């Protein structure tokens, strides 16, 4: 039945994430960007909340929040700063995958992630070309007691330092999704240096070329891992990233609304012009729609991990990112010349939303259209 009341865990976790975002993450956004890294003290404090290290208690973590709680964490941290939020969440994604699908041995390695704030892990997922996870061209081929991984991953967080790097690909024999857990320094992992990006520099995005042969024990969940379950979790990672963008969009719209109430032009606060308030209202409506879609599709994926959710996830991700791009754009536009200078954070959100949008973009789902 329809029940749109978040449960206690969701409410509490969302509130905690929002307070961390407001008090800690948001004020550190510029520092993280300039340093191209989350400042150590900020990372440590976020780490200590346990919000972004979803590891079971038996492995030294604070437990794995539920799927909707995770969405709420992503959105609320994104409300603080998309750069720091993405860095923290994308590190957490590796733990999520390993915790949900790893062998006992792989899971036991989570203890390090759960206890060492200096650890950085990542999932190498995206390949560009609009490919969804079921279409990945990176091959993960079992050859006897070895696994050979070949392909090119782009938009990989902590590309040069992730330990482990969980690489998602498909098994050329079956077409099914597979993943491997690669420790830092694995031979055949070539990081393509990235001189920086439009935004999200704290996530240290890079491309990775892979031609790796490792023992079959590196296969996430081993040779008999359930590909459907893995695929479902990977889809959820995409939804979580989209949720971060929704949080940023909301923040941009709130900020712009606040600014518009105080800024005077032609004798009135600019918020009193519908040319200013309508785009913000439009953004609010779309943000509600995008958030609801992320929740609903996450529920569907969780309820039926074996189902084909490619279309639904693709639509939800594409829509949420497009909404975030437009909302952050309208945020800058509302501030006008002030939106273009770094005294205000709207320009950072504008860059960040476009960056997130480029990571997971499908030309089939979001055709170009000039405004009509």
């Amino acid at each position, binding site marked *: *039945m329809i029940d749109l009341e978040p449960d206690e865990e969701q409410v509490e976790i969302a509130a905690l994430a929002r307070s961390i975002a407001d008090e800690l993450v948001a004020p550190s956004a510029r520092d993280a960007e300039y340093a191209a890294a989350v400042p150590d003290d900020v990372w440590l404090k976020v780490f200590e909340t346990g919000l972004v290290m979803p590891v079971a208690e038996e492995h030294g973590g604070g437990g794995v929040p539920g799927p909707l709680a995770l969405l709420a964490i992503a959105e609320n941290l994104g409300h603080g700063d998309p750069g720091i939020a993405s860095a923290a969440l994308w590190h957490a994604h590796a733990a999520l995958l390993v915790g949900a699908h790893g062998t006992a041995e792989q899971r036991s390695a989570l203890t390090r992630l759960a206890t060492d704030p200096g650890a950085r892990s990542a999932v190498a997922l995206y390949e560009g070309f609009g490919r969804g996870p079921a279409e990945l061209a990176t091959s993960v081929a079992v050859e006897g007691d070895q696994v050979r991984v070949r392909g090119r991953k782009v938009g990989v967080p902590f590309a040069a330092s992730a330990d482990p790097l969980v690489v998602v690909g498909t098994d050329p024999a079956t077409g099914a999704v597979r993943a491997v857990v690669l420790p830092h320094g694995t031979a055949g992992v070539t990081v393509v240096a990235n001189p920086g990006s439009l935004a999200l520099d704290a996530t240290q995005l890079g491309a990775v070329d892979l031609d790796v042969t490792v023992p079959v024990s590196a296969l996430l969940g081993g040779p008999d891992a359930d590909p459907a379950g893995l695929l479902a979790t990977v889809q959820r990672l995409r939804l979580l990233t989209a949720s971060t963008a929704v949080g940023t969009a909301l923040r941009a719209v709130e900020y712009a609304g606040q600014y*518009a109430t105080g800024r005077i032009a032609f004798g009135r606060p600019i918020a009193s012009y519908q040319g200013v308030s309508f785009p913000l209202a439009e953004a609010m409506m779309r943000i*509600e*729609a995008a958030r*609801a879609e992320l929740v609903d599709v996450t529920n569907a994926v969780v309820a039926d991990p074996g189902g084909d959710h490619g279309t639904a996830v693709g639509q939800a991700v594409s829509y949420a990112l497009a909404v975030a791009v437009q909302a952050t754009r309208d945020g800058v536009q509302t501030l006008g010349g002030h939106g273009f200078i770094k005294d205000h954070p709207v320009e950072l959100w504008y860059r960040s939303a476009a960056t997130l949008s480029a990571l997971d973009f499908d030309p089939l789902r979001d055709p170009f259209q000039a405004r009509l």
Partner: protein
Amino acid sequence: MSYSFTLSRPLQDYARTLREWSTTECRPYARQADEQKGRPENWREILDTAPIPLGRADKPELGQVPTFEDGDWITKLAFYEAINYGDVWVHPTLGGGIGDLVVKALGTPKQVAEWYDPIQQRGGATAFALTEPGFGSDTSMVATTAVRDNDSWVVNGSKMYCTGGAFAEYVVVFATVDKELGARGINAFVVPRGTPGFNVVKENEDKLGIRSWTTSLLEFDDCAIPLENRLGWDVDHPENSVGNGYGGALGALAFNRPNMAALAIGLAQASIDVVTPILKGQQAGFTPQRWSAVERDLEAMNATLERGRRINYLAQVTVDRGRPSRSLAAAAKGFAPETAERVIRRCIELLGPEGVSKELLLEKWYRDSKIMDIFEGSGQVQRIIVGRTLVGGLAG
């Protein structure tokens, strides 16, 4: 699941049954209803074929819409979408108008006993007249006047878009007793049919769509009604007056907005569902690239209607929980109707000239749908309301 957009199985089943019935039994009369500008003459018989209770005002003995655990307002959403999926003519036949509901909302106990209770017991048509040629969204501009003349209120003015106004037993007319008072001067008056000076200028306005909905253009020309017909006002015991209640009454109407959005979604979903099999049958006529574009359009349209439904749910859950959100209601009404227009138009375009032909209902639904972004607050009005969550009263 503690946070879910999925209807309960019983409500899903009810809605599916309703949708199938409205498609099978009611849709065949859609063209006729449009051309004749009214419900089919055998509407009662058609409604009698419903396998589930519809909550008919004319036959209350057939039962109300059941209660579902999802909540009453969520149920309404499913109900409105499913019944309108067949065609727009069906839903207005269920109720006898909303004049009596206004009496209930605004009247003194005595007035409720006189004009509301009997309608509940025996049925009957009532109407509600607010909109005038001179205003739409800005209801504070009511220009119809009610002037006291000894034992009467004398009403003068014009009303348009008065649903069922030509047939109703009485029309609840909003008129101002003192223009200086602005919105506070606006009161509601029960004007019975047959009162001298109550003229039906046009029984059913000539409209782009929803032609089967009888909306009347009325004129009140020195129309004198008894003093006690002013709702909320006790002529003998002024201390018992409950006030004009105008703002509150209109405020409550705000929560009907997602229902109207659901009507729009019903039409748009019907359009997609009509064209999809036709297009699939014609697939060979498209180049592979164009067919891919057609499939993409269908996917995108279904997805956007789902978004509209979810905003509707978000809005109406707040009503069911007793903490109604005006801004979510406005977001719901701001989103789906405009989207539905686009969806129906695209369905037409995908079919090409076949899409505009009266062989199909698409052209009709395209006409019908346009009002849904206009009535009960246009898209612009909804954006003002949503904007208030960000910039407060400056949005306007």
